[in-house]
């Protein structure tokens, strides 16, 4: 799949390939190739360093973007998969098990969107059902039992808007995961590697350290849905994406996440190994730091981390009613101070 804004790049690439094919017997073409290659590089830089938030959402959703399997292989020396919620179902949208990452035994889990059509349908395009959240809950409990960290790779459009998911209590299941993550006395490391859709994403990234890949996003609602509710026009999704500040850099600036992991030029799908490597290094770094902390201190720090996230004004604070009601951007303590 080629995204709209990728077209100039893909055109350059096609021309370069064609010239290479012809170049064998023609010395002069080499020069033209070099020229085009330079142009390609600069086009890539120009395009990818100025992606709009909504373009990043499209990159985050790219079907060729690396997924759970690629990260799992890059991160883990061994991955011992566990299945099922122990209640009656196994949701392939959530995968997890024991793994070893950078020498640390961990519980590794993540959303798996699947790699072919059949798997994509089976995993409901990464939208977990309640069974998936309950499988995650079981994995959190195992991490606590064994005293090993949780590493979560987030990549979901969000919870499933589906009859069965409601009948089996997806809100209850997400809530139970949040409660579990809030108190699990082991390090919790999360990386948003693609889509970070609302509560379904949060059920895997209430964590001690949250990294985001440069072109991933984390949002309380899909930009399309936000546009259709607030602007009453789903085609204004780009505006909604802009307004909600859902990109990795925006969230870092707001102190919601801890770091932004650079993607290769052209996005993770253009150079999967570069993306998986940077994620693996980030996870290893977080694990090395967090495994040194006492469980109680970890849970306390996690408490304080989330407890202070918000943008309310205390009674009487700056201009109060008028200031806030007038839409003037206000100060909030953690607003501009990334944790690291």
């Amino acid at each position, binding site marked *: 799949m080629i995204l709209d804004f990728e077209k100039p790049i893909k055109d350059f690439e096609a021309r370069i390939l064609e010239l290479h094919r012809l170049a064998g017997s023609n010395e002069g073409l080499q020069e033209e190739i070099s020229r085009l290659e330079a142009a390609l590089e600069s086009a890539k830089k120009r395009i990818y360093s100025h992606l709009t938030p909504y373009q990043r959402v499209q990159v985050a959703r790219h079907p060729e973007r690396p997924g759970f399997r690629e990260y799992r292989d890059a991160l883990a020396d061994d991955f011992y998969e566990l299945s099922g919620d122990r209640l009656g179902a196994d949701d392939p949208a959530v995968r997890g098990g024991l793994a070893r990452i950078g020498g640390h035994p961990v519980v590794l889990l993540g959303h798996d969107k699947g790699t072919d059509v059949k798997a994509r349908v089976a995993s409901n395009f990464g939208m977990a059902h309640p069974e998936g959240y309950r499988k995650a809950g079981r994995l959190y409990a195992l991490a606590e039992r064994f005293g090993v960290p949780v590493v979560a790779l987030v990549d979901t459009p969000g919870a499933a808007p589906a009859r069965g998911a409601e009948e089996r209590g997806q809100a209850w299941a997400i809530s139970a995961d949040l409660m579990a993550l809030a108190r699990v006395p082991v390090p919790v490391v999360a990386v948003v590697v693609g889509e970070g859709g609302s509560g379904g994403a949060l059920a895997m990234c209430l964590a001690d350290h949250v990294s985001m890949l440069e072109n991933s996003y984390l949002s309380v609602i899909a930009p399309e849905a936000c546009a259709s509710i607030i602007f009453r026009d789903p085609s204004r999704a780009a505006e909604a994406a802009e307004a909600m500040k859902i990109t990795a850099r925006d969230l870092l600036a707001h102190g919601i996440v801890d770091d932004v992991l650079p993607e290769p030029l052209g996005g993770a799908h253009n150079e999967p190994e570069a993306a998986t490597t940077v994620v693996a290094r980030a996870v290893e770094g977080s694990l090395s730091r967090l495994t040194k902390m006492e469980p109680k201190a970890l849970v306390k720090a996690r408490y304080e981390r989330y407890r202070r996230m918000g*943008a309310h004004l205390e009674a009487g604070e700056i201009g109060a009613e008028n200031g806030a009601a007038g*839409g003037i951007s206000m100060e909030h303590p953690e607003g501009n101070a990334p944790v690291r």
Partner: protein
Amino acid sequence: MPDTESGLASTDGVFTKCESCGDPIYEKDLASRFNVCPHCEFHYPLSAPDRIRLLADTGSFEGRDEGMLAGDPMGFEGYGEKLAAARKKTGLDDAVLSGTARIGGHGVALAAMDFRFIGGSMGSVVGEKISRAMEFAYDEGLPLVIVSSSGGARMFEGVYSLMQMAKTSVALSRYMTGSMPYVSILADPTFGGVTASFATAADVVIAEPKARIGFAGARVIESTTKERLPEGFQTAEFQKDHGLVDRIVHRLALKNDLERFLGLLA
């Protein structure tokens, strides 16, 4: 189905027409019955102040964290105006009131959401006040009673709205390490981030009759999946049949129900 955003039936005249059964209602009757239709028992939305009047022993409610206001962390176009209008309409600072009260003599921490305030959406103020109520209840060893009514996230606050789910969850998780009970009451409608965080992780989940409760709304599901949903989908009764709600309690019996529960553990 009545326009639940309206909060109260019109109080312009002497009579109003029940949007559920179509019968005329004396507005005084409706008010004295806390917005429950005297003919068909339909439960209209109840404001947070009225909810507290319904549940708290007379004069026992003491508000906390009053005057806390929403910021506009995203500088979201139109949010300021929306807030100003909601404040004007409701006389409230935001979509929740919280404090302490007595219910049948039992001291509790009590919070009530107000659907009239931007659809009871959870922004930073809701998250903060709910979390503070939990912390206060934990510190003081008080039972916790929260009445939810919410359309879900407050999109205008972007990811801050999402993070209120995390904030209330860490606060509730700590509260639950104590031994005092947490009763969550779900009023029509309760959806989205509120359902998927503090409103369902309770010891006891009570719902009002016919209240619609869920994560995604029926309209979103129908438009996404093209599936016709069954009669009564996501009503309190439906969710109780699905093992997600403990009890369905008529609004006018709610105070007594809480008194019984609190009395059993006192």
